[in-house]
């Protein structure tokens, strides 16, 4: 039986969604509810820098970005496919554009960390 590519993306959307719920809760907790930020007042340069310089946090943040982009851009692709009247060639082109966008966006995010 040939493998059906599209089913993978259907599962990917759900799995990344579940992953994002976890990652987002963690991210939100660390950013807003951990005592350092809440009690010291507003998020400031020092507080954020001290955490982001830690490579473990960087890793988690990058993973978060990549998973979020996968989920978000796949979702965007679905929306475009639903509302456009385009042929198979154009569909492929749209997919390529979104992939390139994802790669560029990821690079932009990772690069932000590497410049610290």
């Amino acid at each position, binding site marked *: 039986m040939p493998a059906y590519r599209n089913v993978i993306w259907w599962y990917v959307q*759900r799995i990344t*969604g*579940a992953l*994002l*719920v976890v990652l*987002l809760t963690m991210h*939100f907790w660390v950013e*807003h*509810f951990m005592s350092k930020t*809440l009690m010291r*007042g*507003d*998020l*400031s*340069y020092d507080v*954020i*820098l001290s955490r*982001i310089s830690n490579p473990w946090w960087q890793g988690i943040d990058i993973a978060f*970005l990549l998973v*979020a*982009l996968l989920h*978000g*851009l796949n*979702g*965007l692709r679905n*929306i475009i496919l639903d509302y456009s009247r385009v042929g198979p060639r154009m569909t492929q082109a749209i997919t390529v554009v979104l992939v390139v966008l994802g790669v560029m*966006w990821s690079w*932009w*995010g990772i*690069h*932000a*960390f590497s*410049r*610290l």
Partner: protein
Amino acid sequence: MRPTTTTNVVRKYSWQFSGMVAHIIQRVTGVLLLIYLFLHVHTIGELSQGQAAFDQALLMFKNPLFRLLEIGLLGLVILHALNGIRLTLIDLGLGHKRQQQLFWALSIGVAGLIFLIAAIPLFIASVLRS
């Protein structure tokens, strides 16, 4: 034969069904969150430009309008996440027969609850600070 056109006599029937409302919510919040992600990565990128640039950005975020937008963002995230959980459950075959109740209970009820639990401390904290 030309395709049918709708007039205002034919109301958007889709709004009668919670499944359709959930679908629209999911898509709209999803796109808005993507836009937010863009802005977020941009702001974090500013960090690398040094303290002065970052503090400039942070100043903008202390504006009460921004605070409100942040709370709105929280609402968007929670809505999208909980409706997403509902959809995943239904896709796995659980709660299929009760998708309508699941919508009201999960996507609206639980979402509202979590929103209040998360938003109120944040709101209080920001009010106390200013």
